[in-house]
């Protein structure tokens, strides 16, 4: 087997960070799965915004970024971005984003940007239900929503 292929298998499904930004560059969620210091985080946020917002709808949903790839999808004015290794499964993450957005939509009954602003602490809970330690934790919308509603009912 070629060397390059072993390298490929050497990387698991692993997310480096998840960002939700609006067109103006305001961050609506930043979830980090790698250690970065605060300056580095700010730099990444700005760079991702610069890379993603210049692309149009005919472009791919994948863009190489430093040594990684950003998988992103735009919903109205919001960009949902997931940073992964270059040889990770692009489409699996693209749909993981959509799956996440559908859960948010159900949970907030037609989610809009303001929901994410006012309920930022709940968005973290949704993320942790679906992604943990940089891996996909749960993919069933039914199961996630059931759990979220159960938590919602707790005091």
């Amino acid at each position, binding site marked *: *087997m*070629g*060397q*390059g*292929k072993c*390298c*490929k*298998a050497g990387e*698991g*499904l692993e997310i480096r960070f998840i960002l939700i930004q609006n067109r103006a560059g305001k*961050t609506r969620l*930043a979830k980090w799965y790698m250690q970065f210091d605060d300056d580095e985080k*700010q730099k990444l946020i700005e760079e991702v915004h610069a890379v993603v917002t210049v*692309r149009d709808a*005919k*472009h*791919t*949903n*994948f*863009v*190489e970024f430093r*040594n990684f790839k950003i998988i992103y999808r735009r919903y109205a004015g919001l960009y949902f971005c997931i940073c992964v290794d270059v040889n990770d*499964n*692009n*489409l*699996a993450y*693209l*749909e*993981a984003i*959509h799956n996440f957005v559908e859960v948010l939509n159900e*949970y*907030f*009954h037609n989610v*809009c940007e*303001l*929901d994410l*602003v*006012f*309920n*930022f*602490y*709940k968005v973290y809970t949704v993320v*942790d239900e679906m992604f*943990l*330690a*940089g*891996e*996909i*934790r*749960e*993919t*069933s*919308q*039914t*199961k996630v929503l059931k*759990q979220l509603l*159960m*938590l*919602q009912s*707790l005091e």
Partner: protein
Amino acid sequence: MPAVSKGDGMRGLAVFISDIRNCKSKEAEIKRINKELANIRSKFKGDKALDGYSKKKYVCKLLFIFLLGHDIDFGHMEAVNLLSSNKYTEKQIGYLFISVLVNSNSELIRLINNAIKNDLASRNPTFMCLALHCIANVGSREMGEAFAADIPRILVAGDSMDSVKQSAALCLLRLYKASPDLVPMGEWTARVVHLLNDQHMGVVTAAVSLITCLCKKNPDDFKTCISLAVSRLSRIVSSASTDLQDYTYYFVPAPWLSVKLLRLLQCYPPPEDAAVKGRLVECLETVLNKAQEPPKSKKVQHSNAKNAILFETISLIIHYDSEPNLLVRACNQLGQFLQHRETNLRYLALESMCTLASSEFSHEAVKTHIDTVINALKTERDVSVRQRAADLLYAMCDRSNAKQIVSEMLRYLETADYAIREEIVLKVAILAEKYAVDYSWYVDTILNLIRIAGDYVSEEVWYRVLQIVTNRDDVQGYAAKTVFEALQAPACHENMVKVGGYILGEFGNLIAGDPRSSPPVQFSLLHSKFHLCSVATRALLLSTYIKFINLFPETKATIQGVLRAGSQLRNADVELQQRAVEYLTLSSVASTDVLATVLEEMPPFPERESSILAKLKRKKGPGAGSALDDGRRDPSSNDVNGGVEPTPSTVSTPSPSADLLGLRAAPPPAAPPATSGAGNLLVDVFSDGPAAQPSLGPTPEEAFLSELEPPAPESPMALLADPAPAADPGPEDIGPPIPEADELLNKFVCKNNGVLFENQLLQIGVKSEFRQNLGRMYLFYGNKTSVQFQNFSPTVVHPGDLQTQLAVQTKRVAAQVDGGAQVQQVLNIECLRDFLTPPLLSVRFRYGGAPQSLTLKLPVTINKFFQPTEMAAQDFFQRWKQLSLPQQEAQKIFKANHPMDAEVTKAKLLGFGSALLDNVDPNPENFVGAGIIQTKALQVGCLLRLEPNAQAQMYRLTLRTSKEPVSRHLCELLAQQF
């Protein structure tokens, strides 16, 4: 108000967020925040104990302020307090604050860990999950130490809830990645593998990630997961689109779990068990078949999910690289995607096909798509898609399609984005060289590259074309003609001038017969570009001019005029001025014979890894280079252009600048050590300089020394610069020379150039030249690893009295040596009086944090300062008799260690430095030599005689000098050479 926050929200928080949103300016926002911070601080400091709700609300506000980008320096204690609340909403805010604002305050960590411990033990699945998520989010070593032992237990406990198992698996994964040493392997590991059978698909989804990570570190311990993963995959793939209910996504059963299982299998070679393998192949075929079925939904989510599995399946097929049938099917499937209307699919197909191209089974199938890929290169709107197309063309290139691909890439280069031009240039240069059938095509291609994208043609590329032209005499005339034509363009890139200048200087004579490119025409063409060029290029052109004087005597007067012009002779640039002075003197003082010898055509370059390939690998990172180049199994690519194939061992690529323009070609430091073959040795010796060319004429000393100097622009040399004094650490500071130091030194007694030392990390090459009592030595330190050397410091040490005998000035070198890079150090040496021990070279650096040190003997021995002396037989015998005191003579009789070959012996004696006198000894088998050792304080005359006895395989060596220690020392040095 958002639907979900009705009733349960924190009103104060919502009001605060609204206030912030209504701020018209940054200043107003800061003012509002400061007001809130003061308010919260007073609440936290107040006498009245806060209730849980208020605490939660204020901590949440602090978190919001932090997320806006402001510093928060209080509230941690209140957040920790929330952890021990028994209300979920309060606990959740506490954990969130801790996860986002990690603080390694040791006192708090103890409290936090305590709260986590309580929650893990609570048997309340909600609290357990909160605690596990906190560990997974923080993932610090302290948490690893506290909990790494507990979590496996929670993971495999029979009574753990499914959601807890999911969180525990990923929490453990995080701790294992951060500090694998803290996670004890044990009885739980076997049970973890069986989670692949778990009824709950969410548990399987989480567990596969953990198992994949564990497999990579301990593949043998987890082998049993292969058959479990295959059967799980098989059940998913063969299920109907609605079977899996919750886990069906747009009619695709469990897409993410399928992808994860397929990636897990990529940790291993194909299953050994035939039944398992059969079942797996069936799965892979099913996935490929499904791709051909009509879609169950028009939604893009459906096709994305389906194709996520398909691409991962293809990755596994490529990883196995053993099923020709599947590989070809995969290739056909990707071929369909190449023309798909979705940009994403075209991009992914190009990317995936790139790896398929390196498999021998599918290489041909990939090649059939060449037209589509070329079309993609021309028409795709997204630059990242075009880049994938360029990568794929590079990967599918072989001798059959090289011309087409190279010409398409050249065309693409004209419009390519600036960001990828250099990479395209490198790729074209590599392909042109690798698959050149005739080298005129190669030369055309590189000149086209310079014409189209001159700014992006790096040194490596144009050095390489010079090396190839120098090494192949069938292309030299063509190259000269082509560069001559290219230079006719009114505006040509400076790199073209460089290549043109060099090639015409070497091979301009091959086209001089044509009146249209007669010597004066060639010269005036080059000189018309001169004034617009940078210093480095002008320096190169000056060397071309002196070569012209040798090639075309009729241009001598014109060129001398140019050199003599004040703009050259008094040029503010030292390098240009020096060249003008030296070349002018050389051209007027040296006889035609000498000039012809000095300016002889460059000898062939030794073949080594193409520096371009090395550069591409550096650009793309180690993985990419190997996937693209080394993985190719095209047996035919080795024969004709063999020298270009990368050889994994040659990591250090000496900068070609060192030998590019040297007037006298010296073998570069990477040259293999001389073998016993006579021819080899002769070349070595004759390229050494003064020993081989004693009649160079009375050039000034500076001029002599600088001739050896590599004219690369980055080395404005020592003549004017203050050489840094050798910082001499006392000899006690450095280690003893390595055991083989003497042996290495002996190799350099009779030669001046070669590899002084080499181990797995470092290669040290030497190039040196001596004249009278002066010498200059270049040391080339090559980093053979891919890791940077830190604190790199080579110093020269004079043990004992040596300081009064030999002066060595060194120039400092950069403290960092990049992986694969080479640095050069210059030593100026002056022999003050006779000496017996060589100076020591101490090299220290840090490699991957570990200090390395090495002490060698510098190859400077007394015989380096030999001036050969020619004399007649009569004179020789007269002097021989004058040195007849017993202490003036040293004699040694010794056994031959090497085959006794008269030519080799001659070469060695010449390399030693003495003149060889013919017709002196009555016995023609014997060798007689004479010379003077030049030191600043005194001169020592030396006579020597070497009498071989072929029958006995013995030699007798006799040395007579005016100084007793010198006689003995020379005798010892020389005796070890035979």
